[in-house]
């Protein structure tokens, strides 16, 4: 069986302007949403706070739960249905990290029991203090930065066989970070600056494959974060795990295409770079789509069957894999073409 015929020949590089417009509009929408919401929507892992998951044996109203919570000073908490309908499960969140120490779960049980008439089962309590939240946020950002750093080193070294240059870029990135942290600049800004430095260096050192791969990577991560922001979904530790995996995984398709481009450049020197790139995309199109398809199959199964706790993680991965597949064709390769100066 074959979805894509071997002799397929779509003019991908010719559609690059449309691709750019599409990507840029996605980025702008993401940016607007992030600005509008005042940054990413941090969950309690990063913002600090308390989350309580309760389950009732009978159906109860959110109103009654709220009433019960207000009797113990938790009137400012949000209550939402959780899980499938008819499961009578609720998620209670407060932004203030309650001191869950003294008789906390007992008082929650009692107040909800008196307001709803049923004793709830407390299935999960998560409390993150503000300091811990800040620490976790810092760690998460550093993790994103380091994976980008190491992948940049690997990509630039591996694709162009210029390990010295990739070392220089890495050194520049690290010193940019070191220099900026000395001035107590916030970490997101540091990461942006470090990435900007490395992109400028790629341009200057003519590391065009690395340039294409990293631009596509930033594109994927940023849009995934943007889509999360648009849907008002929360950033938690598992979402960071998903983002890092996307960083690693979305490169796969790019690597497949780039490997073929390198192979074809050595075989047919007479063709123009544009023709070679377009031919390579077409030749590898089948596997680019298939590899993403098999991964998407399992991710969708996780999304629909894996339960609510893992739901957002699966969503982030699905988004990332789709955008990663798109970007390897419509972002990474055109950037490579643009930076290939004869």
């Amino acid at each position, binding site marked *: 069986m074959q979805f894509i015929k071997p002799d397929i020949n779509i003019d991908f590089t010719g559609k690059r302007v449309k691709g750019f417009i599409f990507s840029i509009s996605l980025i702008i929408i993401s940016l607007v949403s992030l600005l509008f919401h005042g940054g990413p929507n941090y969950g309690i892992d990063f913002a600090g706070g308390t989350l309580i998951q309760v389950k009732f044996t009978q159906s109860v109203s959110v109103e009654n739960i709220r009433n019960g919570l207000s009797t113990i000073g938790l009137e400012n908490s949000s209550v939402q249905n959780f899980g499938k309908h008819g499961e009578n499960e609720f998620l209670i969140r407060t932004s203030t990290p309650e001191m*869950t120490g003294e008789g906390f779960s007992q008082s929650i049980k009692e107040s909800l029991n008196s307001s709803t008439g049923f004793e709830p*089962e*407390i299935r999960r309590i998560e409390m*993150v203090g503000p300091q811990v939240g800040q620490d976790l946020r810092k760690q998460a950002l550093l993790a994103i930065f380091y*994976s980008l750093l190491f992948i940049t080193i690997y990509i630039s070294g591996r694709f162009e066989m210029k390990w010295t240059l990739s070392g220089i870029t890495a050194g520049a990135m690290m010193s940019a970070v070191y220099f900026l942290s000395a001035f107590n600049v916030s970490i997101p800004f540091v990461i942006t600056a470090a990435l900007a430095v490395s992109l400028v260096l790629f341009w200057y050192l003519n590391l065009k494959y690395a340039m294409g791969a990293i631009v596509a990577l930033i594109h994927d991560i940023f849009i995934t974060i943007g889509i999360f922001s648009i849907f008002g979904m929360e950033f938690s530790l598992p979402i960071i795990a998903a983002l890092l995996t996307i*960083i690693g*995984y979305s490169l796969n398709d790019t690597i497949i295409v780039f490997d073929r481009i390198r192979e074809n450049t050595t075989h047919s020197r007479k063709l123009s770079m544009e023709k070679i790139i377009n031919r390579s995309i077409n030749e590898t199109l089948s596997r680019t789509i298939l590899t993403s398809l098999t*991964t*998407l199959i399992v991710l969708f199964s996780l999304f629909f069957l894996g339960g609510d706790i893992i739901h957002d993680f699966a969503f982030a991965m699905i988004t990332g894999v789709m955008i990663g597949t798109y970007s390897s064709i419509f972002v990474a390769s055109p950037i490579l073409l643009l930076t290939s100066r004869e």
Partner: protein
Amino acid sequence: MKKITWRGMSIATVILVALIYVLPTLANNCWPHKKINLGLDLQGGMHLVLEVQTEKAVETTIERTIHEIKQELRKKNIKHLGVSHNSDNSISIQVQNQADLESVNPVIADEFGNFEVSSTQKQGEKRTVVLKLPHAEVVNIKKMATDQALETIRNRIDAFGVSEPDIRLQGENRIQVQLPGIQETQRAKELIGRTARLNFQLVDETGDVKSAETSSPPPGDEILYQIQEDPVTGATSKVPYLIQKRVLLDGSSLTDAKVMIDSQFNEPYVSIEFDRKGARIFEQITGENIKKRLAIVLDKTVYSAPVIQDRIAGGQARITGNFTTEEARDLAIVLRAGALPAPVNIIEERTVGPTLGADSIRMGLLSMVAGGILVIIFMVIYYKGAGVIADIALLVNILLIGGGLAAFQATLTLPGIAGIILTIGMAVDANVIIFERIREELASGKTPAASINAGFDRAALTILDANVTTLIAAVVLFQFGTGPVKGFAVTLGLGIVASLFTALVLSKSIFQSMVSGKKTATLSI
């Protein structure tokens, strides 16, 4: 006759070892007894991060030193105008004149050598010496406090009886406590978080509690409360006491604490036993203060304040206070384990009930099986015979992840299951890349055997590259992640390594053994 190749042997060995490691998880009590550990999010349990307020330990040291300085000066008959605790944790000793200062100085040098004199101020005739703890000493006190808190908490949890608790330092002054499978989370938290500083202090019966409550207590006194519960309504009320600040005896002299049942009222109480020095002090206190009330104060709360009837020798006392048997048992545990050197705060808590954990396992496995079957069917439909090989590789891949988890004693978490599911998708990716290449080679007119060789050779590097980048992400995640996320990094990393093996070694061997020796074999791909 097929030859047994080295590669075939090593593949068989790897699979066999993985099988051996996976077996104990599936069947009970089976060698090598290494089960796959389930994370707290899957088996239920409690994860706590406590912050030791080490600043308080430094303050306590300063307070104690002030007390000692006063005693020492009194003993040597040196007059002073006051020894005070400054806000920057330094101590000021004020004396009348230069002559007194000269007699104070050798005392400081001899007895309080761990302090340094940071300045000596003159104010007319008066002299003030300011003592400070050197930075290294402060660091040391904080470190000792954290270490001791860790040890104390460990002893308390051991006495409480939790199977396989994990208690470790996190950073400078944080303690991470993981109690898998624990049900009585509230009780455990109270047991762990309690400072348990036991003091014996006299009740000041000359002063008036009511007026002290509205204004301020007389010098040298403090107001502490006893919490009383109405046996009928269950309502609690606070009874104030005027207590002398001077601590006559504290919990550090305890050698034992156990729960006893009062034969008269059939109520549990905690019987405590002092060491020899403590027993002597207790005898002295009770002898000197007959008919006065002695308060038993635990963490600034009065438990009882009985009137001393007689001199008590033998070093035994009892703490009563309307306990339930459980409360009495927990109190005995914390008294035996000793007080925390400084109070602790719970700054992070993650508690998962056992039913939620079971649900997570069920749904995780369900989506894994469903996703796996879909992928397996897809591969067979799309690649026919080669798809079957990819499916075998996939199953071996999952087996290897399981074996790896057991062998490294890693912890499987809910995100970890997600990681396995993800690797199911990614493991076939490698096969897809190879198969597509083989199809291309076949289309260019090569024989099946040559196509297979070319396909694997050319795809190997691409697969390696693609997996290295994901592996980098997994390693970084492992470094930075905690708990569940770390579990994800582990399964993702294991899955990538396993899929490299199954795609580049296992699939290749199966393919080659299929076409070897046959000149005109066709390839089902």
